[in-house]
């Protein structure tokens, strides 16, 4: 039969689409296998890079593999742990607070002494130009947490200046920093409350 005639046949059309699907899905499957490893690696590298921002320094273990999940105020918290010489030296986890336009999600790294190693905002909907100064790219406000702990400043001073605390607010935007400060403060409280499990040390019976 000639191609012309074939093209009019119902079964030809069905098979044509089928064949196209067959060929392409086969191609894709192979390609997917080829790229799978690279994609995974890229995603891990991504996550690592963001962890590294709040956990400066080198750790002997693979952070992504040493995790623990603990109950927090708003559901489960996934904690990554960094070790040196087998001891947990630092932990990283997510905290969130309420900003001007919804919740602000941050990751924070805390040393075993309870000091903040770094904080980064990973998701927020604050007003560009007002509230977005919490991003390191737009200002270094977020670095003002580094090295602080629940005793520095004292608990009452863990607030923006307008509310009598020590942290700066931005001109025309108080809500956003207030939200971040509260979130970080809550994160430190979480650390204090779950220290034993976090540091993987002698869980007292």
């Amino acid at each position: 039969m000639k191609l012309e005639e074939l093209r009019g046949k119902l079964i030809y059309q069905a098979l044509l689409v089928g064949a196209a699907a067959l060929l392409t899905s086969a191609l894709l499957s192979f390609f997917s296998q080829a790229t799978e490893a690279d994609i995974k690696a890229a995603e891990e590298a991504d996550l690592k890079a963001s962890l590294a921002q709040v956990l400066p320094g080198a750790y002997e273990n693979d952070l992504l593999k040493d995790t623990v999940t603990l109950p927090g105020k708003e559901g489960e918290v996934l904690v990554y742990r960094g070790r040196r010489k087998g001891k947990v030296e630092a932990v990283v986890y997510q905290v969130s607070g309420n900003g001007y336009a919804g919740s602000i999600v941050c990751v924070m790294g805390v040393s075993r002494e309870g000091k903040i190693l770094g904080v980064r905002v990973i998701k927020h909907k604050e007003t560009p130009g007002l509230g977005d100064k919490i991003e390191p790219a737009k200002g270094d406000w977020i670095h003002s947490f580094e090295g602080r702990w629940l005793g520095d400043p004292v608990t009452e001073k863990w607030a923006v200046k307008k509310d009598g605390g020590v942290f700066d607010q931005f001109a025309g935007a108080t809500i956003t920093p207030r939200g971040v400060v509260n979130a970080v403060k809550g994160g430190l409280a979480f650390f204090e409350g779950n220290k034993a499990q976090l540091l993987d040390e002698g869980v007292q019976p």
Partner: protein
Amino acid sequence: MSEYLLLLLGTALVNNVVLVKFLGLCPFMGVSKKMDGALGMGMATTFVLTFATAASWMLEHWLLMPLGIQYLRILAFILTIAATVQFTEMAIRKFSPGLYQVLGIYLPLITTNCAVLGVALLNVQEKSDFVHSLMYGFGSALGFMLVMLLFTGLRVRLAYAQVPPAFSGAPIGFVTASLLALAFMGFAGLA
């Protein structure tokens, strides 16, 4: 109930497919010169969009996920959408030649209306259940329809305005869309 209402409002107004998500712009610009065309396109898209969101949810949850072949998602979704659209096109052509006339070349373009695939893909990312997905698709379609009608109304009026030659037609359409998008920013934070 109010949860669904919020979802509808959110998808239709706050995160409007066209003005905020930037999906479906070609028909938005192309079929907005006459009210009938816009209405027809809006309705056709509403149907296809809702259907595609539901169908792709099923594909994802009953085929791709169980088999672990999510990398074929684009392929599977678009195939389904394209077939549906073409089927719809043939049906409309058969049963409503008037509508077919109005939609003209844009009916096949629904396939390539990226709102359809875009919403389906976004919806899968939302990881919501079936009813939510249906609402998500329908809400997005409503949003598309709404801005389509508003925009068409404006463009029809502009057709009688003395727009400077350099701007008449598409350029003023974009400027108008810009101001419409500006207006829709007022819905931010609503839902």
